[in-house]
């Protein structure tokens, strides 16, 4: 019995150490955001210092911060909503109907899921110039919807399959049209899947940096691109950078705490049942 207790204690110690390793860099980022520029250049082990709000004040009251925040929010929220809407419709269509071309579409979608963003950065820059979408929020939203749809469809497809077909058939016998069945029966039952898909899509649209850097200008910049401007040829403004980086990290971290189960179901989808 004592052996088991000792083993349990060892496990907790190990888990706590791992947690510290995982959270450590995030804590360093947050701590640094409360340091003055001079304090950021002192040695790495200085955890005790008089915190300052100076960085947050500078970042938040900067004249462009409001615009960048609004850009990021519009891009993140609109891209997530469109992806969810189109994604759950497509997942339902693929899971519940058989038609010519179904297989081709399903497999192409699966293959598109892993396209490296570096591969499409160049052609997208060219095509968006052609379509007059560069430097517009619409262009960024369209791109994020397109690159997030494959994962969303793939994830929700699994959730739609778990909806008992009998429920849908019973509704159809009662005279329900496919749209009504989709809205009244399927959608409510795949809500956990929708939550997971929403978090993963928002995470990409809100965090993405490279394509946003290539496709935006002064007025359409998103927050990650704005943060990268604190890195200059003469040095890095660590305090302000970490303040803005902490603000950017906040929403995805909050969603993770609120819906950890959905995040894990999204991560393990496809490989592990349950």
């Amino acid at each position, binding site marked *: 019995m004592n052996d088991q207790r000792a083993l349990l204690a060892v496990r907790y110690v190990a888990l706590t150490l791992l947690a510290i390793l995982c959270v450590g860099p*995030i804590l360093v980022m947050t701590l640094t955001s409360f340091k003055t520029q001079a304090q950021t*250049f002192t040695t*790495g082990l200085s955890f005790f210092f008089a915190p300052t709000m100076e960085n947050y004040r500078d970042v938040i009251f900067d004249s462009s911060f409001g615009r960048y925040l609004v850009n990021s929010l519009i891009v993140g929220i609109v891209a997530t909503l469109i992806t969810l809407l189109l994604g759950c419709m497509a997942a339902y269509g693929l899971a519940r109907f058989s*038609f010519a071309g179904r297989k081709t*579409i399903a497999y192409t*979608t699966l293959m598109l899921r892993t396209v490296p963003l570096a591969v*499409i950065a*160049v052609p997208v820059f060219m095509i968006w110039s052609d379509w007059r979408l560069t430097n517009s929020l619409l262009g960024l939203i369209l791109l994020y919807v397109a690159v997030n749809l494959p994962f969303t469809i793939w994830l929700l497809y699994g959730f739609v399959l778990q909806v008992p077909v009998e429920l849908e058939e019973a509704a159809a016998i009662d005279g329900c049209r496919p749209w009504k069945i989709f809205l009244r029966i399927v959608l409510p039952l795949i809500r956990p899947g929708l939550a997971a898909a929403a978090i993963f899509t928002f995470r990409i649209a809100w965090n993405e*940096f490279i394509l946003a850097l290539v496709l935006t200008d002064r007025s359409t910049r998103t927050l990650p691109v704005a943060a990268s401007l604190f890195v200059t040829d003469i040095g890095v403004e660590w305090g302000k950078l970490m303040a803005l980086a902490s603000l950017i990290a906040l929403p995805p971290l909050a969603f993770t705490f609120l819906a950890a189960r959905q995040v894990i179901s999204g991560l393990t989808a496809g490989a592990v049942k349950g």
Partner: protein
Amino acid sequence: MTTDSRSNARTAWIFILPAVLIMAAACLYPVVSAVRLGFYDWSMGTPWAQAKWSGWTSFEIVFTDPAMWRSLLTTLKFAAVSVSAEMFLGIALALALEGNIRGMAFFRTLFILPMMVAPIAVGLTWRYLFDAQFGLINAVLAVFGVAAKGWLADETLAFAAIIISDIWQWTPFVFIMVIAGLANVDTSVLEAARIDGARWWTLTTRVKLPMIAHVLAITLVMRLIDAFRVLEVIYLLTFGGPGDSTEVLSLHIYKTAFIGQKLGAASAISVLLLVVVMVLTWLALRMSNPLADSEKDK
């Protein structure tokens, strides 16, 4: 019956068409363009109509360019080292810590946080941690009497730095996958093996791991795909330097296109990266096809 299935097909298309159109226009079309661009000589900012057909020239230039081969080698090394370290650590930790421990859900939540943080925060925070003068890593090493190192100024150490940051961010993914896989293992089989006198090591290597071999394989391929796609964190942590010691393929493509302005060459390298990733993806689909369950009853 025919009219029924025809209206069925029409309903299906109404459901999937919007998504298909957007993916075709803003994802598939760019991918196809990336391949096509490889055959043209075109500089950014000039009208596409002025682009000249150049055949295989870009591919010949790229495949005889030592910088491309160095970048490919860096990518292979990065994928091999980081993914095997993540697999080893993730599996070992999952085996040691699985089981019904109170508070496990809370720890799991903490473990997935690194994956949710923006690359801009991850890349630059690690740059700060690895700083030669005021970085936390040198400070911790100093406690153990190790002299300060110029992490990001040395080719080998910079490569170690991108590996370490990747291990930090993605080992939890392997851990979560393995834990989830182990949770689904039939306990009666384990019980039977235990009654037969199997010790922990035998039980683990002969029973548990083989039973989750499928999960391990798909996790490995998913990690490999991501390792080949890696771009943002390295862009922000080292920007490929010093020299080109950490310039992975994605970053090499980006620099060739947006700094070197050589779009044809960038596209030719893109084709190479695309082929590697698509082969891995096809492999992943062979192992775990999300469409397979429904295919049977159709």
